[in-house]
């Protein structure tokens, strides 16, 4: 585990002088012995510990969800049903999606927020440390419930992570109850985390840190937190309506009782679209921290970056219909959603241009975080462009529910969000552990991941265009060759993450060369003013920012 000041473990670690920053002696009365052991992790209210917990949890979930993807790709390796039954295959696609969205990407970003936001704004911790502990610990509980539902008679949820009614209501197994309960808990965790982020940023910035001086990562997380507050309750309502339709005789989505199955899709995607921006805005923030550092040049267009992020967040509320173009929507509304969706590409494009302009005439070096950031910019842009194609309604009729869509969202989520998380981990890991990670392992991780992820997802564009629908366990013969390669890419990408695992474990053992507080010579920000590894408590006295 990444423990910052665990003074009781033997071994090659820097000593307890790291316990206290030089400038803070005054209100030390909380600091007796540094905590250790299981109760440390169970009861911690320290933002660094909680950040670590979130990150480890997210990584484990990433591997679990990834294992499910391996099952999917193994079945799709060849035409025919070889490995699993179609019903179980549907459970795999469903739970893979749920785990990756709610168990890997979101907790990872929350872990980064917990670790970095207080330090970046010169605060000693998050605003509500005890709620912070709860926010984390209910997550393993929620996922235990979700995963155990797979072992129920009748199987786990098999209706896709989007759980459309009436497949999820009348025609689903009883495990739907566990699914609903689990999603409620995940939602509560996200909402509590978002509250914490907002209150921390509003109330605890160091004197002199005005809003327009905050690092971009803090800005993007502030806006993300507002999106979370706004839409997680809508998900909670949607999932509750599914529960009551199934078990308590309501007819929200049942035509026989006067309801409408399309209503479900409206409610779900009103949550669902902001949700995908929730999963990418923090990534934008991370890239906006990393690119200036390794270009040795200030971020180009700081103010536009902030406004663009705000614009993306606002627009995200009025585009939900683009997931529903085939439901039988009248033309006028299809045109509205088409225009609004295309509009989102303008602020997003501005951000990409700003990153390139940051690099332009900078002094660029290619350390591992920068390589992931560059890969993000290129590959996320590809994902964004396929998104632009999807926005065009007549063409979308051919793309919708095919592998073209699967390609699009995996580009923005894997080579987008996940790569940004890896970039962030490589960027800040030396700050957390005080040691440079194993660069050879990191390079292997990067290159293996980069190549395999493209072998995995790029051909999906082709099979989708050629006519392969999504969420099917078996396919017609003309899709066989590409599917084989996609599966090979998938296995390779999965294996590549084991390199990352080895590297993290090594880093947590505090092996490697010691680093200074600066770590990267182009880095700017409060987090680079404090020692590496970061002391257990930092900025107990606020710095003054000029």
């Amino acid at each position: 585990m990444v423990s910052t000041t665990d003074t009781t473990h033997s071994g090659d670690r820097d000593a307890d002088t790291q316990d206290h920053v030089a400038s803070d002696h005054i209100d030390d009365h909380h600091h007796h012995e540094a905590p250790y052991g299981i109760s440390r992790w169970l009861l911690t209210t320290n933002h660094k510990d909680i950040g670590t917990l979130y990150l480890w949890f997210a990584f484990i979930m990433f591997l679990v969800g990834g294992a499910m993807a391996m099952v999917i790709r193994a079945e799709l390796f060849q035409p025919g049903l070889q490995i699993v039954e179609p019903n179980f295959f549907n459970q795999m696609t469903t739970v893979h999606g749920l785990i990756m969205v709610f168990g890997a990407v979101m907790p990872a970003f929350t872990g980064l927020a917990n670790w970095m936001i207080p330090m970046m704004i010169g605060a000693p911790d998050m605003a509500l440390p005890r709620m912070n502990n709860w926010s984390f610990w209910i997550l393993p509980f929620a996922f235990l419930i979700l995963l155990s539902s797979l072992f129920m008679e009748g199987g786990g949820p098999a209706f896709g992570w989007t759980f459309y009614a009436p497949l999820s209501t009348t025609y689903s197994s009883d495990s739907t109850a566990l699914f609903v309960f689990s999603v409620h808990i995940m939602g509560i965790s996200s909402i509590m985390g978002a509250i914490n982020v907002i209150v921390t940023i509003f109330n605890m910035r160091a004197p002199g840190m005005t809003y327009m001086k905050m690092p971009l990562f803090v800005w993007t997380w502030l806006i993300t937190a507002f999106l979370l507050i706004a839409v997680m309750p809508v998900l909670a309502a949607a999932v509750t309506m599914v529960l009551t339709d199934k078990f308590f005789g309501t007819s929200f989505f049942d035509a026989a009782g006067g309801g409408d199955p399309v209503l479900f899709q409206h409610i779900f995607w009103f949550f669902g679209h902001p949700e995908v921006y929730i999963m990418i805005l923090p990534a934008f923030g991370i890239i906006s921290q990393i690119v200036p550092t390794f270009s040795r040049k200030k971020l180009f267009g700081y103010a536009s970056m902030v406004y663009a992020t705000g614009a993306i967040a606002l627009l995200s509320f009025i585009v939900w219909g683009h997931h529903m173009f085939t439901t039988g929507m009248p033309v006028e509304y299809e045109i509205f959603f088409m225009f609004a969706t295309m509009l989102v590409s303008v602020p997003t494009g501005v951000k990409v241009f700003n990153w390139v302009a940051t690099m332009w005439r900078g002094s660029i070096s290619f350390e591992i975080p920068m390589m992931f950031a560059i890969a993000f910019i290129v590959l996320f842009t590809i994902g964004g462009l396929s998104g632009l194609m999807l926005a065009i309604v007549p063409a979308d009729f051919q793309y919708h529910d095919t592998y073209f869509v699967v390609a699009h969202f995996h580009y923005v989520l894997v080579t987008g969000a996940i790569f940004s998380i890896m970039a962030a981990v490589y960027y800040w890991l030396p700050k957390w552990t005080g040691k440079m990670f194993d660069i050879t392992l990191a390079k292997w991780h990067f290159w293996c991941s980069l190549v395999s992820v493209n072998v995995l997802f790029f051909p999906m564009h082709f099979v989708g265009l050629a006519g392969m629908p999504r969420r099917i366990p078996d396919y017609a013969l003309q899709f066989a060759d590409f599917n084989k390669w996609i599966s090979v890419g998938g296995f390779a990408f999965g294996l590549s993450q084991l390199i990352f695992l080895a590297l993290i474990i090594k880093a947590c053992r505090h092996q490697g060369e010691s680093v200074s507080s600066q770590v990267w010579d182009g880095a700017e920000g409060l987090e680079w003013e404090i020692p590496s590894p970061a002391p257990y408590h930092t900025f107990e006295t606020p710095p003054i920012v000029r």
Partner: protein
Amino acid sequence: MKFSSFISYMSVLLIVCLSFAAQAIDTGRSNLNMRPGVSDISNQVYGLHMLMFYVCIAIAVVVFTFMFYSMVVHRKSKGAKAANFHENLTVEVVWTIVPFAILIFMAVPAAYTLIDMEDVSKPDVTVLVTGSQWKWHYKYMDNDVEYFSVLATEQGQIRNQLTKTQNYLLEVDRPLVIPTGKKIRFLITSDDVIHSWWMPDFAIKKDANPGFINEAWTNVNTPGVYRGQCAELCGKDHGFMPIVVVAKEPAQYDAWVAEQEAIAQRARDEEQRLLSMNMSMDELMSQGEKVYGAVCAACHMPNGEGLPGVFPALKGSALALEDIPGHIRIIVEGSPGTSMASFAKQLTMSEIAAVVTYERNAWGNDTGDIVQAKDINAIMYGKE
């Protein structure tokens, strides 16, 4: 190197790549690209798709050119010194306005095509398409022809016991037949969950919502056989309910319709005849096995053992060994709240009698029971 030389190299490279790609992609029927299809609308859609594609390629090339150039030339290891600028109003305004203009350029033709696609007026033929788990049903609204359209690929191929044939998973027992050169209107709905009727060659994809109807239309230019699939997750056999449409010249279409009406009438007469007849055990078993294989085996498995916890076994089950009326009833009415649908509309009474007889005698069940069409009739309509 100079920026201008870099640009020249990149442009040449781009042109070479694009022409190669265009050759590979634009062959009308390839594994790489959407197909242009066989209607005017589908060709318009293909055109829009290619236009968007080229615009996206161009944007990507421009952006990445700047980026890669920067990575090569502005490297610290090459001695580059970082400049100091971090804003430029002109540039920022330009790269906001220009993308905005590009979007308008893309959106306008798209809107026109869309309006065309949604204009369902003045159809020549109307077909009611009903999706259910896991098959399609077609009913011609201008005459009395209606039938189910079920996946025709045998389980043996799916389970890798037989070699897969060319139209694996894209073939049905009774395809939809439409005339070319006429406006065909589709009314699309569902019997249970949301399905989606997708014909790539017509550029039609419309969700089948239970309790509601959606509309779509096409006008097919070229006779031929066209294949599509269900495009909305609808349960376990979502991948196994394909769509096949055969487009015939109008004269041949009319002949086909007349033939279908005759077939339907004969089937009704046959049903009446069988109601008063008794089939032999051999006849029942043979027909029952066929029906079972085509309709029941996907869930209850060819060996009758089902999927524990999900689809009950029929081999050795109480229903199949003891309760004849219950056995018939569950097939006729389905089991609400489960995946067991009602098959009363999909199977004739003699087919149901055959499959019940088969299930009661296969796999060692050996009850010796014989069930006739009139027994089914009694359960469905009479006293019991």
